[in-house]
């Protein structure tokens, strides 16, 4: 681990490794509990692991298993509920910690790609193959099952006020509003979107697409801007808390889109040359201006919006980063890796040069 020697820098910080744990295989998803003291992680082979962050060290234990493999995890807003979804078509829901067996909801579909709790209510959304399902934690009922989308759903995300949930599949974005009798709103594009992210002000839905493009959907008007030029399909999206900036991967460079004013259309994005490896994860700090990225070569980079020329810190990981999550307070960074390692770093102000 090393900080970079810099001249005339406006921002300086280091990443200090706190601890790591080694899970048996590829970490496919991980999420911080809202209190920032626990992580829930799943591996591609289906292991569900609860990790307790004890500051300088960590304890972990296996709490569940998805046959055939796991895909995703999520926490409810108050941290009382946690959920995981897998290739067995099951969603497991734990309440009040991991001491008792989870509630398991089975669907006919073979693939639960995402689980997502509403940021406002105790409602869990998940994708069961091509259908979106909503579950009410208060009465334990599945109260919404959407019609089938045009392919297996690739991603699911609630809007910031928790009133609607957007999914992406083949042929674009569909916005479902629970409790409304009107049919879901379609943002149609003949192509395959793989991931989506709401701008924090809910003005835009950004999607990363199979054909090496991204889309900015203006949620109200339904108009879209399609941005091409990426070397590869785009799976990495993260919004700055101001909603002005979207950062995307889709190659070996970090691409920064300015969405202020009339939006990103017609503006050239900023490119931050990161290194040789293809970017695998990008994540803005929840309330701050730091951005973290990982790549295929296992390089972790820390960037800052105020200084866009080069990274302000870099670390070599033992494998490619597969999940990159800031703790809710923005002070810790958890990284899941392709070799099963989960490592946590702490953001520290720059120390005086030796």
């Amino acid at each position, binding site marked *: 681990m090393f900080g970079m020697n810099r001249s005339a820098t406006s921002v300086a910080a280091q990443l200090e*490794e706190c601890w*790591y744990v080694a899970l048996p*295989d*590829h970490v*496919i998803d991980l999420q911080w509990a809202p209190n920032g003291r626990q992580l829930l992680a799943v591996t*591609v*082979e289906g292991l569900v692991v609860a990790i307790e962050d004890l500051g300088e060290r960590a304890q972990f234990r296996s709490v569940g298993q998805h046959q*055939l*493999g796991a895909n995703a995890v999520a926490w409810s807003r108050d941290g009382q509920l946690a959920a995981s979804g897998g*290739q067995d078509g099951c969603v497991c829901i734990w309440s009040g910690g991991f001491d008792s067996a989870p509630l398991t909801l089975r669907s006919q579909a*073979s*693939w639960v*790609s995402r689980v997502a709790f509403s940021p406002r209510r105790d409602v869990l959304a998940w994708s069961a193959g091509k259908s979106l399902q909503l579950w009410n934690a208060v009465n334990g009922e599945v109260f919404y099952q959407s019609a089938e989308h045009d*392919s*297996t759903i*690739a991603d699911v995300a609630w809007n910031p006020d928790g009133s609607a949930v957007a999914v992406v599949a*083949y042929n674009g974005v569909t916005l479902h509003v629970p409790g409304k009798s009107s049919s879901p709103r379609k943002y149609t594009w*003949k*192509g*395959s979107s793989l991931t989506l992210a709401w701008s924090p002000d809910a003005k835009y839905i950004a999607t990363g697409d*199979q*054909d090496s493009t991204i889309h900015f959907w203006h949620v109200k008007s339904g108009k879209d801007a399609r941005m091409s030029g990426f*070397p*590869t*399909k785009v799976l990495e999206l993260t919004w700055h808390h101001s909603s002005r900036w979207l950062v995307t991967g889709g190659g070996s460079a970090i691409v920064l889109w300015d969405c202020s004013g009339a939006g990103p259309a017609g503006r050239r994005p900023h490119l931050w040359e990161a290194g040789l*490896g293809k970017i695998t994860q990008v994540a803005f700090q929840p309330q701050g201006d730091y951005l973290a990225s990982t790549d*295929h*070569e*296992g390089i972790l980079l820390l960037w800052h919006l105020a200084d866009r020329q080069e990274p302000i810190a870099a670390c070599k*990981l*033992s*494998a*490619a980063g*597969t999940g990159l999550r800031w703790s809710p307070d923005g002070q810790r960074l958890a990284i899941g*890796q*392709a*070799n099963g*390692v989960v*490592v946590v770093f702490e953001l520290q102000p720059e120390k005086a040069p030796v």
Partner: protein
Amino acid sequence: MTDTANSPTADHKVPVTVLTGFLGAGKTTLLNRILCQQHGKRIAVIENEFGEIGVDNDLVIGAEEEIFEMNNGCICCTVRGDLIRILGNLMKRRDRFDYILIETTGMADPGPVAQTFFMDDEIGSQMSLDGVVTLVDAKHVLLHIEDSDEVKEQIAFADVILLNKTDLVTSAELDALEARIHAMNAAARIHRTRDAAVDIDKILNLGGFDLSRALETDPKFLEPEYPFEWSGLYDLAAGKYTWIFQPGPDPTMGAFCTPAVHASEAGMRERVESAVRAFSSPEHECPPGSECRVDDRFLQVGLEGEALRYTWLIDQPGAYVWFTEHHPDEFAAVLTDEQGQALEPLVSREYKPDHEHDEEVTSVGIATPGDLDLPKFQNWLRELLATHGPDIFRMKGILAFQNSNQRYVFQGVHMLFDGREDRPWGDEPRRNSLIFIGRNLNREALNQGFAACLA
């Protein structure tokens, strides 16, 4: 943290075999055979229907076909979304297997499956399409082959074709079917199987081996158009034999008789080339009642009249092969011995004759010595694929470019093209071999276009 690099860029691609074939052709039987054999490979299987098979220690994942069109529905850019998702997931557990098998549904178009490996760079960088294996139900395929695009495409896309259920048809039917399939896809290796029993090495890990093998055969073999419809081998004692014909659809027929070294199918096959040559030599009129000898002459046999007889004088005992322009059955023709006993050929074969060659799906092979001019070739291929991409299912080739000491090998699916420099030519003569498999291909235009690219 340890320093053990788990480099995802390690230059080792996982080979993938795609298994196609109509419902009932034997895909599940073959899959079970592959999984049960002691081959030392750990195979991940993507099944079109989940739960049909399941073997301990193997990774079996169910998939339901999801077709993704890209770029406004261009068929060349159509991929399989379900495979992108599942293969992407499998790449995250690469240490679990050494090989991937994809079973498609009977009606699946192999194009989008193959294109997925070209169009998705994440998959293309970590996996390679080793081969498409197509199972053909020898008994029932003829019911579908005429009007099913799927069957034609499955045959056209294949690197290996298993003619399965051979126990349910006669060897003559098999020969005819094999000739027909070969005319559609001359680059595929054809194996005859029963209960899908085949050596695993013939279908997995074909690699570049099969490509060179297919292309290094005699170029004539790439264009199996025969001027005759039938041949039959008889093992005869010396003596006098009589050919008897009843009225049929044609007034005359070309015929050629030649001695064979072995009284076997192989012995007959060895004479095919000389027969092709004989059929292009000047014809020798042969009116009814003639006495004929085995003398290398190409006969034009008159067939107008009732119960026409021709006498054959055989001086030496041995195996003799007759090649005929039309099928003898069309004239209820028989060969009889001196006692008037009708003789059955020891082996016989039907050929797909060129004058009936109306297959929509065909192969065009080009084999020519000389060096290619790279810019000319690129321009020609770009133009060709832009105009005929949808009709060209597959292409494969080994090329000699001017100013390069290395063989250039390539393969393509529709408009997608993947090529690289291979080993040096060394002592081997520099030559170009390529094959196009597609629908409504213009053989002449392809040959001319390619010839114009020579330096």
